[in-house]
């Protein structure tokens, strides 16, 4: 049976999931990375700066070339390049997924960095019994308990004998699955939703106190916002439409038509203008970072 039509060919960069080869490569990768980090720490400041500049430049250069160099069109899996220029294009295209995997791994390390930072700050606070240290205990305990339950649950589900745990309902669940469910779905997710819903109260309070027609511009903004908000209220829209229905010219003044006109002719062009501005700003900032011209925000 033809399943996934094109499996990734085996290269140095991939290994069978769960195989010994993969684990050896992971351990070797960790050792090499740790070695690089230690070497960087030992490097004199001036040289370290150049190393970071070079790594940043070549990392950025790859994606700059990937986006601006002509890409192969309708390339067949076994197609060979006809010349050096096409060969470079093929190489860029083949290398990009490997670079994406590398960046995924680097980004995943940020989670580890976050955990380290969290532990450093909060264990220090607990150790010195600083103000509100009890909250730090709750935070660390919450994190450790969640990790334990999450990891044990995941590990148990890997065993084919526990396959039922992956099904729907609570079939085959043990203490660990119920615990994970309580912590993740019962607590974390609900607290997450509760936290976000508080924003509505601040929006209402802020709108009531700050949204005033103090100038012509503010009045235009106010009226426009009111029309768009009214158009989101089906009941108001319905009765408004009943009032103007059947009259050709006045059909233009149906709430949804007015709101649509505002979105198409006022809101969209304004946002496009802002987006262009932001885009140009990001581009210039990107170029400055890439070429190491941006000096602010660094530890030096």
């Amino acid at each position, binding site marked *: 049976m033809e399943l996934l039509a094109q499996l990734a060919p085996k290269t140095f960069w991939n290994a069978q999931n769960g195989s010994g080869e993969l684990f050896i490569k992971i351990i070797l990768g960790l050792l090499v990375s740790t070695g690089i980090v230690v070497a960087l720490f030992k490097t004199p400041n001036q040289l370290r700066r150049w190393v970071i500049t070079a790594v940043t430049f070549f990392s950025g250069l790859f994606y700059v070339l990937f986006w601006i160099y002509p890409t192969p069109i309708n390339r067949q899996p076994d197609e060979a390049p006809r010349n050096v220029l096409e060969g470079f294009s093929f190489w860029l*295209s083949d290398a990009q997924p490997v670079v*994406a995997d590398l960046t995924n791994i680097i980004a995943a390390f940020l989670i580890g960095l976050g955990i380290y930072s969290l532990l450093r700050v909060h264990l220090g606070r607990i150790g010195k019994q600083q103000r509100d240290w009890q909250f730090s205990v709750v935070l660390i305990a919450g994190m450790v308990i969640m990790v334990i339950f999450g990891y044990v649950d995941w590990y148990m589900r890997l065993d084919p004998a526990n396959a039922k745990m992956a099904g729907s309902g609570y079939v085959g669940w043990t203490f660990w699955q119920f615990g994970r469910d309580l912590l993740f779905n019962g607590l974390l997710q609900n607290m997450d939703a509760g936290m976000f819903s508080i924003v509505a109260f601040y929006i209402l309070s802020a709108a009531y106190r700050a949204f005033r027609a103090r100038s012509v511009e503010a009045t235009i903004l106010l009226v426009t916002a009111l029309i768009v908000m009214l158009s*989101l209220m089906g009941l108001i829209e319905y009765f408004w439409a009943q009032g103007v229905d059947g009259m050709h010219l006045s059909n233009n003044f149906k709430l949804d038509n007015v709101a649509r006109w505002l979105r198409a002719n006022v809101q969209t062009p304004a946002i496009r203008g802002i987006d262009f501005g932001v885009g140009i700003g990001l581009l210039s900032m990107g170029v400055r970072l890439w070429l190491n011209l941006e000096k602010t925000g660094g530890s030096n």
Partner: protein
Amino acid sequence: MAITDPAANKSLGEKLQSVPKPVLYLVLFMLAAIPLFFPVKLPNKPIDASVEMFTNVMALPEGSTVLVESDWTNSTRGESMGEMEALLRILMRKKVKFVVYTIADPQAPQVSRDTIRKIADEEAKAGRYRYKPFEDYLVLGYYPNGEGTASAINNKFVSIVSGKKDWPENSAPRDVSLSPVLKGIKSVADFKYLIVVTASSTTNTVLERITKVPMMFMVTGVMVPETTTYYASGQIKGFCGGVKGVYDLETLMENGLNVEGPNKIVSEKSTEVIPGFPGMQNTGKGMAYYPSLHFALFLLILAVVTGNVGMFLAKRKGA
């Protein structure tokens, strides 16, 4: 010395401008919470973007596959979960397979799994086919670097599934390349659509990098203005925005499009008759939360008008 109540000396204008916060919060709480206990069906005219999205999803042929980027967690479940549920109901009834991945949040894959399982159970309870993991859908998990992953999806889709595992029903995890969901998928262009359900700017990440497959977005209410620009330029083939968007989809699923009847919905976007799913469980979070949104917006408008009337009265008195 007599103590006078400062509020007693306030003019009407000043009083209107200084409604205490707790009063505003209490009224908002009541207006948002009470409708949840008394569901009412409010009139609704779906916006063009919702109609186009509904039309496109309903036109998907049975057995086809779509790619779903699920970048939401329960912090926006009022909107995002409703969107995901409405989308899943349509996909499952149309027997469309789907592949889910995430680039925004490590929690998102589990939240998606739970939502998919819930709708699959709901469909099975109604006597319809029950979607099975691995057989009918795949969850690829979380990719921490969204930008690189989106580029890889566009460049070589197979590279992002290589080595990934997912759980078939009542079985140990298996390599996703063995799943029938990926049958015949050579590149991202083999998916009918990429549908992004998100509460963050990952819409920009994919728009800038994925070009080989048409896209549709399901975004939160605050993202609607930004998303409208991409819809207006034709870069996306429809979108569903916030609770209003969910209610639009649910209304269209219930009443269909251009279907004759007392609740006929017409749109300038399409004259095609699309029947929807009459008699099935079509309403969900949209129907449940739309009245709350309605009353919350009403309170917001009332509060802004009250504050401004107060300001004018105070100014007139001072002049």
